[in-house]
């Protein structure tokens, strides 16, 4: 019996089993490292305050919805959630509108100084946002945008604009010139070409850019923190305050889950409807 098992084991290794073993181990560890922290967070948000989660226990001994109820009873939490989730779609739509004409020019025209503008559009990706946070703060101060909702929206748009421009630019690039020429030959006006050809064909790019925009707007922290706190709290800045002054693990866990569930859902939705190249064109090759 034992020798037979040994023989089978040797056969397994000969058939590239080592490699398969490595692959399985790698994938399992990777998935564990992603899923376990999420589960731990769910558990922390569900602990019973009377019992807690004491150190050598692998899991809490009792569960309750106490902290979720407490969370929703705090006025600031629903307010921050409402703010985050209304700002994100506004940012997405405005960024799309502003990015569209720029992306059209960058995707379909060639002109002197184009390279320079392409680099400029990339700057918010390649230079960390914190470097402008402080001077942007004082510029916003002078414009009366500090501590206002339009200020937060503009700051978020700044962070996401490059991704939107890049994804839409690459979709504009992919439209074959023949289609446009054919439309003109058939007597279409520039407006009709835009309405019936360019806009529909560029929709997937706008949608992919929109996914980025939505997710990055929900998660943006540095600029919001410097520009809008303490007057306005988005979910991330609120979480930051829960991690600092009044640290409460169960509360912080519940707030995190409030952001995570919709963003992960958005990701899966995007995965279903978008091809991988759209997602990567945002930051692929420079």
């Amino acid at each position, binding site marked *: 019996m034992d020798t037979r098992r040994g023989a089978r084991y040797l056969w397994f290794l000969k058939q590239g089993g080592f490699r398969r073993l490595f692959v399985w181990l790698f994938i399992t560890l990777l*998935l564990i490292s992603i899923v376990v922290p999420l589960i731990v967070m769910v558990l922390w948000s569900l602990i019973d305050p009377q019992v807690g989660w004491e150190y050598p226990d692998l899991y809490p001994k009792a569960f309750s919805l106490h902290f979720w109820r407490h969370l929703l009873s705090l006025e600031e939490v629903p307010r921050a959630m409402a703010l985050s989730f209304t700002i994100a779609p506004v940012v997405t739509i405005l960024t799309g509108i502003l990015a569209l004409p720029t992306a059209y020019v960058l995707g379909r025209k060639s002109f002197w100084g184009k390279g320079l503008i392409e680099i400029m559009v990339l*700057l918010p990706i390649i230079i960390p946002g914190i470097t*402008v946070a402080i001077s942007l703060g004082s510029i916003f101060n002078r414009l009366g945008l500090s501590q206002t909702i339009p200020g937060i929206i503009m700051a978020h748009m700044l962070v996401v604009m490059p991704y939107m421009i890049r994804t839409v630019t690459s979709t504009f690039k992919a439209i074959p010139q023949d289609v446009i020429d054919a439309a003109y030959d058939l007597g279409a006006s520039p407006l009709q070409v835009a309405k019936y050809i360019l806009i529909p064909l560029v929709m997937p790019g706008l949608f992919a850019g929109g996914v980025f925009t939505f997710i990055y707007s929900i998660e943006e922290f540095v600029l919001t923190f410097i520009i809008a706190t303490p007057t306005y709290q988005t979910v991330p800045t609120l979480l930051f305050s829960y991690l600092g002054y009044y640290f409460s693990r169960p509360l912080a866990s519940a707030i995190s889950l409030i952001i995570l569930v919709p963003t992960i859902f958005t990701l899966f939705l995007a995965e279903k409807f978008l091809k991988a190249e759209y997602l990567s064109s945002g930051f692929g090759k420079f």
Partner: protein
Amino acid sequence: MSRMLKEKIALLLLLLPGAGFILAFFVLPLIATVLSSFGLINFAGESGFTLAHYSELKKDFYSVAFIFSLWIGLGSSFGSLMIALPLCLIIREKVPGKELINSLFKIPLVIPALIATYMLMTVIAPHGLFNLVLLKLNIIDKPLQLIQDKWGIGILLVQIWKNVPFQAVIILAVMESINKELIDAARNLGAGSWSIIRHILIPLSMPGILVALILVFIRAFGGFEIPLLIGPVYPTTIPVLMYRSAMEDGNWGLAGALATVIIVTSILVIAGYNRLSQKVHG
């Protein structure tokens, strides 16, 4: 008005909404930051040219922070690559459950840095699950100090956790575009999997690999909230010092000088990337 000029004006007007927005609210503040480091713009007080903020940076304290930031940047980018690259090679092949892996591995991509930090902090803390399991399995006999440690292991773990899918998405896009016939031809000529990986897949994915390394380096080097939360008090990174000198000490000029260090480093890294990618493309 000539037609050429009209067209140029039209182009400019079309560029204005997106590119103009970035010019006004990113490029100008960036210039203001650099000017403020020389005292030419002062957000709070009188202005006048000075190099005092830069001579302040000569202190050991700041060079340690710079080296620590470099360490975090390099550790994060190469650390992530060591997981992202095998992941891409695996996903490219036909693995059972590929679809599931393909969507699960992307989860950290959409998890905000702040939450990722907090989540991992909970798991790797001295009394966290990770240490507990290792203790119960008798692999270690006292908890490992993985957060707020002086090597920044906690920062690296969070950065790597968050950036593996980011790099993998970029590299996969390039890898998928490699001509399949090339790989079939190599296989027909007797190349094994390993030599296909070494001589075809990795060299041809190089442009993507470089971009992935650069972007993660810059994100980690200039990242602020992760080192603030999970990093040690000393040494710390340049962005954290910058935040402290501006917000806590009100020393805007010094903050500007520190920001300029981040800007110059990012630009140098991008310039280096440009040189390298020209070499890669031949």
